Every structure is written in C-alpha cells, then in structure tokens.
C-alpha cells in the first residue's frame, strides 16, 4: 500500500489523483484497507465541511462517519473522470443540508425559538487543541455568522472560502448551476454584510480590529 496522503484544502489534487484512483479501484473490489487510506486522506476535508455546516463537533463527527459510509456503499456510482474529493464533499454537504433541514423542522415542530450561533458553538465536551484554536475570537465570529445562513447558502460559502472552490466546482459539488451558485454567494455575502453592520450583536470595536487584522 502506498504511503499516507493528507489532502488538505488547496493541495494539488491532480498530483495525487492516480493514487486516489488506485485506492478507489481496490475499495470497489471490497478492499477495506484501501478505503481506509481514502478515509485517512480526506477525513480532515470532510470533517471541516461538516463542522462548518453544523457548527457542533459531535454532530460533525457523526455526519463525517455517515458521509464516508455512504461513499463506500455507493462507490460504484463514482465517476472516475471527476475529482474524488469533490464527489465526497458532495455527499457530505448534501447530508449536512438534510440534517440542518431536519433540525429546523424539529425546532419548528417544538415551537421553540431557534438557538443562537453561540448556543450551537458551546459544547460540553472537553475541547481538543485544534478546537481551542478554532474557538479564537475570529473563528467564533465566523461560525456565528455562518450559523445565520440558510443551509444552501452556507454550503456555498464554506466551499468558496474553506476549499477555495471555483463557481464550477461548487456547482458540481452541490449539484446545481453556476448561476445559482453566484446568486447564493451574493445573497449570502449580503446577509453576512448586514450582520456586520453597527447594529449587529457583534461589538463594532472588536469587529473593526478583526477586519483590520486581515
């Protein structure tokens, strides 16, 4: 088996494509070790997407597991002409969108107010070092803003900023058209811009320092 590959956002996927395809071919024949290599290679990418979409660590872990299981069970549907990572993120994002919609329906049916982004960010679990970093002020504000977006918009924003995906790649991942993605991104940015106005719950002096810090 080849050496482990960690495929982080921004990595040149073309360079590792042949190894990935080799693992996919073996996994299709039932080789679980080959699929484990795929899991190790893409777990960070899938987990980050799920975490950003769902805003909660435990649920993100569960969604990541579910995404990989679905990928394994439907591996024969993967078109090798496409990027495996895009296909995998497509499964994960659709699954997260479904979860968010079910979550919303559950809240509505219980007739309870929607929890704020801060409520979602708070977890009773002990934070890992990575999570401690994430809970920096900027990370918390970004997550708070993301939580304000509808699931479809949130997916487009995460793929754009965290994965540096083009309109075409986002459209392919979310199985829609480029114009729909452009529209979602624009509306998402407008919504986020409204949240950043002085009347927003985020203190303006902190926001200014964060924006200047970039």
């Amino acid at each position, binding site marked *: 088996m080849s050496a482990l590959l960690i495929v982080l956002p921004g990595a040149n996927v073309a360079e590792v494509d042949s190894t990935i395809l080799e693992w996919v071919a073996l996994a299709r024949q039932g080789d679980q070790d080959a699929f*484990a290599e795929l899991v190790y290679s893409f777990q960070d990418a899938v987990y980050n997407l799920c975490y950003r979409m769902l805003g909660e660590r435990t649920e993100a872990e569960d969604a990541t*597991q579910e995404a990989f299981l679905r990928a*394994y069970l439907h591996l024969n549907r993967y078109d090798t002409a496409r990027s495996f990572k895009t296909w995998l993120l497509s499964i994960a994002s659709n699954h997260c969108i479904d979860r968010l919609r079910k979550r919303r329906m559950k809240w509505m049916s219980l007739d309870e107010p929607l929890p704020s982004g801060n409520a979602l960010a708070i977890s009773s679990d002990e934070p*890992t070092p990575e999570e401690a970093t994430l809970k*920096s002020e900027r990370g918390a504000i970004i997550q708070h803003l993301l939580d304000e977006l509808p699931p479809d918009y949130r997916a487009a924003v995460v793929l754009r900023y965290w994965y540096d995906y083009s309109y075409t790649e986002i459209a392919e991942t979310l199985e829609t058209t480029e114009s729909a993605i*452009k529209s979602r991104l624009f509306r998402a940015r407008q919504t986020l811009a409204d949240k*950043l106005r002085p009347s927003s719950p985020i203190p303006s002096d902190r926001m200014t320092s964060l924006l200047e810090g*970039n």
Partner: protein
Amino acid sequence: MTELLQRMMQEQLDGVLADEQVSELYQRLNEDEDAAAQFARLGQVDRLMSNPPFARAPQRLAATIMARLAQTVQQQTETEDMPDEVRQALHMSVSLVILAMTPMMVAASWMVLNARYNPKLLTRVLERTIALMVMMIQALIFLLEETEQMARRHPDKAALAFSLIPVVLMGMLEYVYGTQNNGEAGVKAPEWVM
C-alpha cells in the same frame, strides 16, 4: 442596483472579473454611493472570511469510521449469504403480511368514521385501534427477527417458518376483531374484513 453591477461586484470579490470590466466597475461605483457602500461591506465580509481556521478531524475518527464500515459490510454479507429460497420466502411472507394488514387498516378507518358523531365512543375506538395496531406491528417485528435468526441457523426450515408468519398474523387479526366487535357496542368491524 442593477443585476450587472451585482454580478461585477461578486466577480471582483472572487477575483474572476475580466480586466477590462474592473475599471468599468469602479467607474460605476464612483457614480453610485449606495452601491459603493454595499461593495465596501461585501469587501469586509470577504476579508473576514478569507483564510478561515480549518477544523482538523479528531484522531479516533478514522478508526470509528472503519469500525462502522466493517459492521455494515458484515451485516450485508450475512443477508447476502442467505440461500435464494430463504430470501424469496422472506419477501413473500412480508408481502403476505402487508396484504393481511390492509383490511385491518381499512376496518380501523371504517370504525373511526362510524364513531365520529360520538366523541366518547370515538376516543375509545381510537385508543383501542391504535393500541391494537401497535401490538400487531411489534408482534410482526418480533416474528420477523426471530424467523430470520432461525433461517440463518436452519436454512432448510426457513421457508416453512416464513410461511407461518402470515398465518400467525391472521390468527391475531381474528382475535383482534373478535375483541373489537364484542367490546365496542355500536361500532363493529365490517363483515367483509374477516
């Protein structure tokens, strides 16, 4: 603000606006204060979201995924290992059970409709019907699980065991309607059900 201006602002933020359109965009923004303010706010969002922190997967996640995968694959293999005759018997018995339960559902609706003008009776009929249906469904799940286990141990007897499920269900159905017809004066299951 025009759709074209929105598109240009969006593409400029994403770095894909054609060079010849960049100057046109800034010219338009100079002429439109609202649009310029909007573009400034969108730019703030873009700067805030650029190079965001990346969440790394917990160490144990891959191992958990592979454990769940192994379990799923094993369950699939067990089902696939069943002889064809057993699987056919299972499908057949499930179909027969659904057929057997259909009149029960219709009868339940019939009784509810007949009791609709008497609130007290309607409440009792609903409670009884729901309780009986829950009992039937739980019994069905139990029967299917037990029979499936037996089919794995003794594949030769599986077809017989599965074929008995609808018979057992019909027996239960007969008992249920007997109880229903004796217990609820004025609300009887239609005769054509049994």
